[in-house]
């Protein structure tokens, strides 16, 4: 299965991956509507980490042997076709997955007033996830493992 790889040496810290991720996971999927009219604003499932001039974008690694799936109390976190997906209707917000995730890429969706997990779903409707498609400097690439 293809994975998203980070080229931190060319990540320019523009945070546009976060913007496009948030839009992709908004109700309208329209950038202006999503940010201007959807309340609360959609939150991205990708995080740009920065320190000094070094930056890189990180999202769920969709681990082969995912600790979050193992740790999930309710079976909300599952592995499907190589992707780790969270069935939020089953999520009870115990945050165990957040505790065990070695990459720190599982977040709380509390901005939306919901006590459930928010994480990268690998853009299941698209051939190329939006963060990869819209990175202006090709710092995120989709490649075979």
């Amino acid at each position, binding site marked *: 299965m293809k994975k998203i790889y980070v080229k931190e*040496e*060319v990540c*320019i810290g*523009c945070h546009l991956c976060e913007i496009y991720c948030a839009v992709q996971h908004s109700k309208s999927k329209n*950038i202006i509507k999503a940010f201007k009219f959807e309340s609360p604003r959609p939150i991205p499932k990708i995080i740009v980490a920065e320190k000094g001039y070094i930056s890189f974008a990180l999202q769920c690694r969709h681990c082969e042997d995912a600790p979050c799936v193992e740790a999930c109390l309710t079976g909300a976190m599952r592995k499907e076709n190589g992707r780790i997906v969270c069935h939020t209707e089953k999520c009870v917000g115990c945050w165990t997955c957040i505790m065990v995730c070695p990459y720190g890429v599982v977040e709380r969706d509390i901005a939306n007033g919901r006590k459930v997990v928010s994480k990268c779903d690998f853009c299941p409707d698209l051939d190329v996830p939006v963060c990869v498609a*819209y990175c202006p*400097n*090709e710092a995120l690439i989709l490649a075979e493992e």
Partner: protein
Amino acid sequence: MLSLIQPEFIVERDREKCIQCKACVRQCAFEVHKYEPEDDEIVSDNSKCVGCQRCVSLCPTQALTVRENPLKFKENAYWTPPVLRNIYKQAESGGVLLTGMGNDRPYPIYWDHILLNASQVTNPPIDPLREPMELRTYLGRKPDALEIHLSKGSPKLKTELAPQLKLDMPILFSAMSYGAISFNTSLALARAAEIMGTYYNTGEGGLHPDLYKYSKNTIVQVASGRFGVDIDYLNVAAAIEIKIGQGAKPGIGGHLPGEKVTEPISLTRMIPDGTDALSPAPHHDIYSIEDLRQLIHALKEATEYTKPVCVKIAAVHNSAAVASGMVRAGADMIALDGFRGGTGAAPTVIRDNVGIPIELALAAVDNRLRKEGIRNQASIIVGGGIRSSSDVIKAIALGADAIYIGTAALVAMGCHMCQKCYTGKCNWGIATQDPYLEKRLNPKIATRRLVHLLNAWALEIEEMMGGMGINSIESLRGNRLQLRGVGLTDTELEILGILPAGI
């Protein structure tokens, strides 16, 4: 003190489209945009904007427009806004005005007054998609005559040929030093040169250890500061270029300020960390053609006569006479840099007022060398404002062997010609050593874009050559009958050695 300098540009933000994503804030090294958390708004300071269009290009909602400030002084055809602006700047700073890139003043552009021929009826055009076209060329000293020896029926070349540079297309990347441009930019030029079977030029910046692997496609420069020159540097290269002058600043040396001399640059240039890299205006060992001859031969001795030596001069009034001297001094290639040629930093007054158009200099030099019967002894490379494949083909028809492109290559990589190279804050990651900005030029993307540009130009050159019924770039060289001038005076036509359109 109240500044009288009004902003050059106005940044317009469409509030209905701005989503406060702060991409513009992060992308502007000149700190034009600022996020105000209390108001959840981004405000822009027009006075800092240089018009590089980085924020406009990165804005995900196209909320930004940067346009020229239509500031209206009282109409005056003589005291134009740029003239007034420069006086205000100098009255406030008391210093020499600096700038980057090439001469931007409205001097005549001779390329745009030269038209190409095409075949009709009596001489058939060639379809480059169906028939082979030859863009390959060789640079270096050519013999006066070839002696061929026939032994047992198979011909053998008796004449010993001087070392030659083989180019798959007659375009090279001109000298841009690591220091003036970022490492990633140099890397992209080197990789593109390798892919396209051509050469890039180190400029006076030395050769970074990581670029040694592209040395087969590298022309190394020996300039007045002698930065980065040692025996490995000379021996590893495909050719050596002695830089006497630069089109953007003839008669002027260079100055890379100490702040830009970071550790890798100090190692590459072989100077202490943080010290100013000063290139003197003259080579202190060259005050005559005889002195130049000594340096050319010293370099040839050092490299055991295995590689051609090029001498680069800025196109100035007596270029033809100087070029003749250069060839007689032993240069295998001469590079002419026109007044539109770019720079990382030059005094504005020099850039805008010194030197001559490359079209005229090229025609004059080619004429002079032909008249003296020494044209075969050196190849001519011209540069300085070559913008398109048509400029390339016109230059070749005027007599050039190959073309140097610098500005066009930078534009292909993303340069927007804001002319602020000398600030070291290039928002496009090209003319900067700031590690935060340098990353913006992804060498992979830049290499791809350079290769695309050269491939596109090669296709266009083939189309134009085919139209003229010529199937080899060698047959076009100095073929001024393929050119006609429009809107030129008799004197200009005479210097260019071309007929007016209609004859």
